[in-house]
């Protein structure tokens, strides 16, 4: 085979890892499922695949570095358009800061909610295993008291005057549910029957659910969350939608240029487009009864045939190139031969 010479060790290592990675995925694909299961790869495949994703995720830093280098240089040397670059960098770091703060806050809320959820889950587990006395019950009682005390103190973090009417209602409901759970004999009794444990588990789940709603409602009013909503929902999503909306205008402009009947090909293209558009609307049926069927035929027969041909050709070409990449059979232009 024509394999380009690899003069340096780095290139050899890259080729070795490419080959090993390729042979793993190739073997996983070509070996029968029973063989893959018997040698124990099946259960580890997801972890291995995730490992490759993690390696890819490291490249994200490259993008960030590129932006900082390109725009940072402009700002430092005050080159033309440096103010725009400064705005970009301020926006970038501001967004990173706000997104990180929001993420840390959401993580804390999720952890607190999980702690409370554990009460119900633990009680349900004991119920399922029919454990109604002994050390597991004492542990459940101790853990429940600790978490309910913590939850009670956390929901009082903000003064009532700062809560909205909806939040106040949520807080009252949650406080009542926590009190009910505390009042449950289970937290102090030694001998518990299964029915009492089932009732406790259900009430604990209700407390966890209300607690989750209340905490999320509280965090939605924070400055960080408001800034996040403004940046993500207010700016980012809206600007993305605006760009997408531009497509409508561009389609009309491009269609005008392409559908001017100057050649047989453009005449064919325009006729097909007119039939498809008329077949899509009810007015098309008024012109000719069979217009929707004609549209359907155009889309399903000639159009699908062309699509399949393109996909088949590209798929085969991609397969050949993939084999070449796997075996590192590269032409001189991509080898590491330095001049």
């Amino acid at each position, binding site marked *: 085979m024509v394999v380009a010479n690899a003069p340096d060790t780095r290139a050899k290592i890259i080729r070795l890892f490419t080959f090993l990675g390729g042979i793993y995925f190739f073997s996983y694909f070509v070996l*029968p499922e029973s063989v893959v299961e018997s040698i124990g790869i099946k259960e580890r495949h997801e972890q291995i695949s995730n490992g490759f994703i993690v390696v890819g995720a490291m*490249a994200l830093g490259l993008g960030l570095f590129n932006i900082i280098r390109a725009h940072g240089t402009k700002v430092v040397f005050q080159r033309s358009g440096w103010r725009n670059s400064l705005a970009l960098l301020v926006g970038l770091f501001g967004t990173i800061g706000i997104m990180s703060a929001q993420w840390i806050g959401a993580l804390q809320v999720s952890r607190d909610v999980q702690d409370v959820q554990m009460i119900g889950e633990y009680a349900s587990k004991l119920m399922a295993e029919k454990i109604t006395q002994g050390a597991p019950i004492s542990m459940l009682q101790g853990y429940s008291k600790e978490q309910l005390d913590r939850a009670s103190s956390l929901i009082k973090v903000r003064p009532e005057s700062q809560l909205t009417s909806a939040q106040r209602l949520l807080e009252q409901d949650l406080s009542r549910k926590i009190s009910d759970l505390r009042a449950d004999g289970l937290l102090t009794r030694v001998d518990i029957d299964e029915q009492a444990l089932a009732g406790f588990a259900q009430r604990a789940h209700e407390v966890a659910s209300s607690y989750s709603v209340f905490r999320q409602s509280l965090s939605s009013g924070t400055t960080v969350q408001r800034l996040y909503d403004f940046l993500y929902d207010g700016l980012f999503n809206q600007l*993305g939608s605006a760009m997408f909306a531009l*497509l409508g205008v561009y389609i009309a402009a*491009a269609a005008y*240029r392409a559908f001017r009947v100057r050649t047989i090909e453009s005449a064919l293209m325009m006729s097909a487009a007119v039939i498809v558009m008329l077949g899509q609307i009810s007015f098309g049926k008024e012109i000719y009864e069979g217009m929707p069927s004609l549209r359907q035929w155009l889309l399903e027969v000639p159009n699908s045939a062309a699509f399949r041909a393109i*996909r088949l050709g590209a798929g085969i070409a991609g397969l050949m190139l993939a084999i070449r990449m796997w075996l590192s059979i590269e032409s001189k232009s991509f080898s590491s031969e330095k001049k």
Partner: protein
Amino acid sequence: MGGLEHATPGILIVLLGACYLLYRELRRVGAGYHHYIRRIAGVDAIEGSVGRCAEQGKSVFFTTALTDVGPVLFACLGVLHSIAKRVAQYKLKLQVPQYSPEAMALVEDTVREAYRDAGRANAFDPESIRFLSSEQFAFASGYMGLMHREKAGAAFLFGVFAAEALVLAEAGQQVGARQVAASVSPEQVAFFICTCEYTLIGEELFGASAYMSREPVQVATLAAQDRFKLFFILLIVVGVAMATLQPWVPDIAPYMPHRLMTRDWSSLSW
């Protein structure tokens, strides 16, 4: 075949056949066999477009858009290498806006090497490979802005595209850039035909690099893929003939190509 987790014996045979075809063509080309490559007007236009930029003193744009690291990107890099080399020879400015950070590292390496091959390694400007965003429409708006500011003379749109295809191509059209597009996404081909001077469809993208560089390994790959495609066309013809004959010869049903290809390992008797 979508969602197939493990190959059937039929698929394994086809894959091994593909490997053999590639090996055979590499051997033939290595031994000096010359393959004829048909002219593609779109590929010829690439060279013409770069030349036009040299006359006008305008910059050249090349984007791989949403293409991630994979065979399509490597096919695009072959074309980028040829374009970057000419850009370096003509002392033009090249802009390669980036969507994927992983792809960016490979793109930068390719352009750097092209400049080195052209004997102008010092002229390579790392800032010409600019990461815009990993968000589809943020990338599209960044590309539009860059195109309008630079007023490019030529733009090459190669790779995988989605809804942003028309936005990118229209931006080039608005500044009067001569555009050549190549996409493996059939849904976007129609948009490119409407907005670009030349459009390479599907596998032509993979052939473009071999056509431009005439490098033996790339030409051998092109020859192997053509032969492999011929095999598939024969398979389709045989399948159609067998499906047509099936009402009269019902016994041929188990031997239809699609049945043979999808037959599981468990159906084999050793």
